[in-house]
Every structure is written in structure tokens, then in C-alpha cells.
């Protein structure tokens, strides 16, 4: 028995920070608020690092039991945290990237109103996210799952006086509910058939079961329902619509929640439940198809977006699609590997985009940027690293993980060349829209009006409504580089984006093998494929070359269209006509959902629930009975004339009546 690891401290530390800042932060200075938030978040990171350093000497997987929670009959769900290779990786990514983004946010949010509120929410998010990845049973995981949704809602609507931000927060929350519904049903099925939600117990019971090869079965149903939950949280088709709108939140939030960590929760959940998915090939196929289609679909939308953050949002959806593709071909470690590298470079992209936005006074439209390379060199270089990483150029981090996914999409027994082909097309599109962003932002002539005249007011005017605007300490005459506190996290993430992939997908897979080992074995067990894999090494190199070529082609095309001949995109757009408009308007999916789902609900609520049921039945029942009582009383009250003799008359009449009745009865 090893001494307790106190694993519970990792999630609880940020919770303490959130509580202190949330309850008392209003009275603290900004410095104190920032210090508290960073201390507790940093402490969680330090704790995670300490666990990681001791990891090799720990008897994993280990469960750190904290307290009993629900015990009903044979069912048991406790506050307990679970540590294995998978949760270690997730814990390090969440605390590490989270801490860096906290540091960045101190600089980015310094002049905003509600500073303490922001950091309280951010720490609260860390608590829930760490609960999600460290939970030892599905129910505790669900607490984290819902909690990050709450934190996401609070942070998207952080500038709640802005209508669009408040609406975006609601949209994110409501769309997530649809996914959570599926997840909950999956949990109910698990309880019903396995009597437990503990990972260890459930997986132990499922392990001896055979794969459901012929169509549907219990595990397939559970897997599909879990995928519904994952699609909601991780913004996959058809529930992705909330993520682009979530960009209404402050940029550090977009980086932390809507790029690096929360949206990857679905991938983590699928990977964590791989025992179930391994035995449900139909569910796996659905995961792969959803992932592939989402990757392609979101990438095409990303091409036509003009808002720098929206491009990154669609890019995030697309990259999440890659992760699901990896999970869908049972290459879980490749998915988690991409999750990790994506956290680095996408976190960095958002932070750098925030730095760009900060530099030119709150402008997010790329058409009004350009030529910023010389003005903000540090941001430029870090963004460059991230762009090359996401496009998949070697030796940047994204290359290793994406290449591994594409290879597995083809080579895995669950794979197919269709997945690979769509994946490569998506890689090309990714490279194209990312370099489009890069060229539009940093090269050419500056097309905005921030230089010289515009002050820094506009970016903070929004936040200023929610609190008091504080004068900036450094001058805001024109385009300016961000303060050091924002640049240092950028530099660290840039370092990770460049070198983070050098761990190598193979070594990463070996590290995660104890978790996914069974999956690998099941995969290898498919006999007709096993021999094939060994003889395909030259093919793998060819595939790598093709995906790098696709990335290079994307770079060339972006250079051609947005650097060399900037008038071309306009002509192409005109030539494409209707198709271009469909893509530029995000395929009208929001409008379609509005007609199909939102309008019926709103109209039904208005006409039926509100006007017919609430007003017509509930209110009217009450009002009518009150009116009836009133009119009856109105007619009867005239008996109360105040005339003594009339009262006496009534009494006499009544007495006569009673007597008459008794006499009549007596006669009978």
C-alpha cells in the first residue's frame, strides 16, 4: 500500500481559488485577484507535475478514494479519483496549458470590468475539467462534464450586457443539453445492465464479452449514445453549431475552453470508454464517419470566414473531427496524441490571435488587418510556429499527430481509404485556410484604421459596460506589441508546438499501451489485416509524403491567392456564385436549425404552452373561479342589509321551514 497520493488536491485547489475570488474578489485589487488565481492554478499544475515525476513508481492504475457519495442498494458511486496513463496525460495538458492561459489572461483581461469574476470562473472551469479527467466513475465524470458546460456558459456570456454574447452562452448550453441527454441515457443503460458506473468494475464486466459484429446490441447502443454526448461537448456534426458562436467570449476563454481542453472532453470520454467501443464496431464506424465528415465540413466553412476567431473556431471543430476519426478507427492513442499537440498549437493560435486583436484595438475582421509582421514580431513568430504546426509541416508538433491519424485511418482494421482521402483533403484545406489567415494578418499592406488615431477604447468599451474601465498604463497610440505577461505564455506554447511532437507517436502509444493495450490486441487479432500492416512501411512513407505535399499545396495556394494576386479570390468567389454564398453563410445550417428546431419550439411554447395552456387553462381556471365566487357573493351580499327586522324575518322563515319539514317527515 503506497501512501495516499492526495490526487483530489489537483481539482480541489482551483476550486479553492475560485471560491476565494468569487466570494471575496470584489474587494481585492487586481494584483491580488491575479495572484490568487495563478497560485491555485499553478499549485494544481505543480501537483500534477509531482504526480507525473513519481508516476513510474506508482502502481497504476490506482484509485484515490476520497469520500462516499451515493450508495443505494448494490449501486455505488463515490468521490474517487482514478489515475492511469490516460488521465495523467489529460491532467498534465489541462493544468499545463490551463496555467499558461491563466498567465496570459492576466495581461489580456487587465483592463476589463469583472476581473475577479473572470478568474473565479476560469478557476472553476479548471476544477470541473480536472474532475472530468480524473473521475473514477462515470457519474463523477458527468459532474465534471456538466460543470465545464456551466463554466463555458458563464465565460461565453462573460460580457453579458452584450446581447450576442448572452445568446451565444445560452446556445452553447442548450445544444450541450441535447448531447448530455444521450450521455445520460448511456449511463442509465450501464447502471441497468452492469449495476455500476465505476470504470474498473464496468470494464471488467464488459471485458469477457464478444464484439457485437452483427449490427446493433447493448454495447452498440451505449456507444452510440455516448457519441451523442461527445458530439455535443466536442462540437461534432450535427451539434457543432454552438462552438463558432462561443467565440463571443474573451479570447483566453476561447483558447482554454473552446480549443485546448473542454471540447476535447468528448474525445477523452470515447477513449476512456474504449472497452465499450472496441466491442461495438457499428458505434466505432459512426464515430469515424462523424469525425471525418465534421473535419471536412468545418474545414470548408473555415475557408470563407473573415473573423479571425471564427476561422480558428471552425478549425477547432475540424481538428476535433480528426480526433474522433482516430478514435473511430480504434487508434485511441493517436487521437489522444493529436488532442495533446492540438492543445498546444490551437491554444497558441487563439492566444496569438488575441494578441493580434489586442494590438489593433479590438478588430477581429481579417480584411482590416495585414502587414502586422513588423509591428508585432513576437506575436508573428509564435503564430507562425502554430500555423506550421496545425498545417502539418514537419517537424512541427501537428505533423506527427496528424500523420499518425491519417496513417491509422487507412491501416487500421476499422479503417478505409475513404477516411484517409477525406483526411488528406481536409489537411489541404486546413493548411490553406490557416495560411490564408497568416497572410491576411501579417503580410501585405495594413488595411485597418487603428494606426495613429484609434485609441484602445473600442476593445474595452464592451467590457467597460460590465464594470469600470481603467486607463491603460502604456500608450495606445497605434499598433503595439502585447505586454510580456502575454508574450511569455505564447513563447512557451510556441516551443511546445514546435517540439511537442518529438515525443513521437510510437513512444506515446507505448506509454498509453497499458490503457489501450487491449484495443491494440483486439486490432491485431483481426487476422487478415495483421500480416498486411507489417508490409506497409513504404506505403506509410508515401502517405506521409502525400500529406506533407497537401499541406505545401495549401500554403502555395494561400500564397497565390492572398499574397501574390490578391484580386483573385474575389473573381473565384464570383465564379462560384451560389456555392460560395452557401459556404460563406456556413451552409445555412444555423438558419436550417432555426426553421427545423428553434422556431417550432419557440412557436409551440408561445402559442400552446404560453397562450393556450398557461393563459387559457391555468390562469383562466383561477380567474374564472375567482369571478364566479365574486358574482355569487355579489348577489348574496344583499341579504346583509343591516336591517335587524329583515334578519329576524330570515330566522323566522328558516325556523318555519325547518318545522314544516319536520312536521312533514313526522306525518310520513
Amino acid at each position, binding site marked *: 500500500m503506497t501512501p495516499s497520493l492526495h490526487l483530489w488536491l489537483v481539482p480541489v485547489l482551483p476550486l479553492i481559488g475560485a471560491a476565494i475570488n468569487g466570494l471575496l474578489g470584489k474587494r481585492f485589487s487586481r494584483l491580488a485577484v491575479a495572484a490568487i488565481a495563478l497560485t491555485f492554478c499553478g499549485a494544481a499544475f505543480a501537483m500534477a507535475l509531482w504526480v507525473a515525476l513519481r508516476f513510474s513508481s506508482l502502481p497504476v492504475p490506482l484509485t484515490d478514494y476520497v469520500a462516499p457519495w451515493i450508495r443505494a442498494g448494490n449501486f455505488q458511486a463515490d468521490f474517487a479519483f482514478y489515475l492511469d496513463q490516460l488521465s495523467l496525460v489529460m491532467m498534465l495538458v489541462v493544468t499545463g496549458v490551463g496555467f499558461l492561459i491563466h498567465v496570459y489572461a492576466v495581461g489580456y483581461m487587465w483592463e476589463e470590468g469583472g476581473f475577479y469574476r473572470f478568474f473565479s470562473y476560469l478557476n472553476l472551469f479548471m476544477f470541473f475539467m480536472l474532475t472530468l479527467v480524473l473521475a473514477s466513475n462515470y457519474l463523477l465524470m458527468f459532474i465534471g462534464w456538466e460543470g465545464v458546460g456551466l463554466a463555458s456558459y458563464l465565460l461565453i456570456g462573460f460580457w453579458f450586457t452584450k446581447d450576442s454574447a448572452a445568446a451565444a452562452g445560452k446556445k452553447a448550453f442548450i445544444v450541450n443539453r441535447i448531447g448530455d441527454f444521450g450521455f445520460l441515457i448511456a449511463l442509465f443503460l450501464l447502471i441497468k445492465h452492469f449495476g455500476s458506473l465505476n470504470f474498473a468494475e464496468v470494464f471488467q464486466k464488459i471485458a469477457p464479452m464478444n464484439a457485437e459484429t452483427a449490427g446493433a446490441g447493448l454495447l452498440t447502443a451505449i456507444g452510440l449514445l455516448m457519441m451523442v454526448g461527445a458530439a455535443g461537448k466536442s462540437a461534432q456534426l450535427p451539434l457543432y453549431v454552438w462552438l463558432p458562436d462561443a467565440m463571443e467570449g474573451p479570447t483566453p476563454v476561447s483558447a482554454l475552453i473552446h480549443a485546448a481542453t473542454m471540447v476535447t472532453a468528448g474525445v477523452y470520454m470515447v477513449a476512456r470508454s474504449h472497452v465499450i467501443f472496441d466491442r461495438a464496431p457499428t458505434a466505432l464506424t459512426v464515430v469515424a464517419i462523424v469525425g471525418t465528415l465534421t473535419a471536412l465540413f468545418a474545414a470548408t466553412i473555415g475557408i470563407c470566414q473573415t473573423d479571425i476567431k471564427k476561422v480558428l473556431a471552425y478549425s477547432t471543430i475540424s481538428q476535433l473531427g480528426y480526433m474522433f476519426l482516430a478514435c473511430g478507427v480504434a487508434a485511441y492513442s493517436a487521437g489522444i496524441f493529436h488532442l495533446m499537440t492540438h492543445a498546444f498549437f490551437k491554444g497558441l493560435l487563439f492566444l496569438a490571435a488575441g494578441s493580434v486583436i489586442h494590438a489593433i484595438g479590438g478588430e477581429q475582421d481579417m480584411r482590416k488587418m495585414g502587414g502586422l509582421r513588423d509591428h508585432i514580431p513576437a506575436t508573428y513568430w509564435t503564430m507562425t510556429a502554430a500555423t506550421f504546426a496545425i498545417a502539418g509541416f514537419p517537424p512541427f508538433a501537428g505533423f506527427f499527430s496528424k500523420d499518425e491519424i491519417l496513417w491509422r485511418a487507412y491501416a487500421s482494421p476499422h479503417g478505409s481509404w475513404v477516411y484517409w482521402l477525406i483526411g488528406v483533403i481536409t489537411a489541404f484545406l486546413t493548411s490553406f485556410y490557416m495560411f490564408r489567415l497568416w497572410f491576411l494578418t501579417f503580410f501585405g499592406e495594413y488595411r485597418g484604421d487603428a494606426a495613429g488615431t484609434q485609441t484602445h477604447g473600442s476593445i474595452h468599451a464592451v467590457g467597460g459596460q460590465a464594470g469600470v474601465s481603467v486607463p491603460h498604463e502604456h500608450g495606445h497610440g497605434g499598433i503595439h506589441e502585447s505586454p510580456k505577461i502575454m508574450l511569455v505564455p505564447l513563447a512557451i506554447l510556441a516551443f511546445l508546438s514546435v517540439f511537442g511532437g518529438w515525443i513521437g507517436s510510437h513512444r506515446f502509444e507505448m506509454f498509453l499501451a497499458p490503457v489501450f493495450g487491449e484495443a491494440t490486441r483486439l486490432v491485431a487479432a483481426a487476422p487478415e489485416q495483421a500480416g498486411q500492416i507489417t508490409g506497409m512501411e513504404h506505403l506509410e512513407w508515401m502517405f506521409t509524403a502525400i500529406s506533407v505535399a497537401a499541406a505545401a499545396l495549401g500554403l502555395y495556394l494561400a500564397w497565390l491567392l492572398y499574397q501574390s494576386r490578391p484580386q483573385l479570390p474575389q473573381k473565384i468567389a464570383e465564379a462560384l456564385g451560389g456555392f460560395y454564398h452557401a459556404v460563406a453563410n456556413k451552409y445555412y445550417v444555423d438558419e436550417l436549425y432555426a426553421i427545423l428546431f428553434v422556431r417550432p419550439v419557440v412557436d409551440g411554447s408561445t402559442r400552446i404552452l404560453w397562450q393556450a395552456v398557461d393563459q387559457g387553462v391555468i390562469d383562466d381556471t383561477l380567474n374564472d373561479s375567482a369571478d364566479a365566487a365574486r358574482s355569487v357573493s355579489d348577489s348574496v351580499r344583499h341579504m346583509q*342589509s*343591516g336591517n335587524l327586522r329583515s334578519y*329576524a324575518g330570515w330566522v323566522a322563515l328558516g325556523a318555519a321551514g325547518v318545522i314544516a319539514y319536520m312536521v312533514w317527515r313526522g306525518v310520513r
Partner: protein
Amino acid sequence: MVPLSYYLVLGGILFACGVTGFLIKRNIITIFMSIELMLNGVNLSFVAFAAQWGKLSGQIFVFFVMVVAAAEAAVGLAIIISVYRTRETLNVDQVNLLKL
């Protein structure tokens, strides 16, 4: 011996007189006396039955009624005096402040 029915008819007539007086008179003292008349009508039938059946309980009940009537007269007259002092009238139709 006078038959029972004579007493009962007389008691009924007395009671009816009391009720009629109560309903048609406006002077509060007259109304008051009408109440006494009704009580006496009832008393008469009580004692008539007591004599008929040779039971004492009817007569004892009459004593109770008389005691209560005396107490009622004391309280009632006091109320009438105070009503007259405040309202300066004994007409019940004008004592109707409780009317809605």
C-alpha cells in the same frame, strides 16, 4: 281539567304574537317586549307538558328560561340605553351601521 291542547294553542298564539311584533315593530323596546312574549309562549307549553306528564323537568327548565330572560333584560336594556345615548333614536331601521 283543561285539555293540553288549549295550553299549547295559547302558547302558540303568544309565540306568534311575539314573532309578528318582532318583525313589524320598529321601536327597539317593543321588539324587546316581543321577545319576552315569545319566551313566555314557550314557557307556557313547557309547564303544560310538565303538568300533563307529572314530570318536574319541564318546570325546572322554565325557571332557567326565566333566569336567563331576566339577565337578558338587564343586558338588553343597558344596550338600548347606550344606543339611545349615541344615536338618539330607538328606531331599529336607523341602527344599521353594520350594513354592507
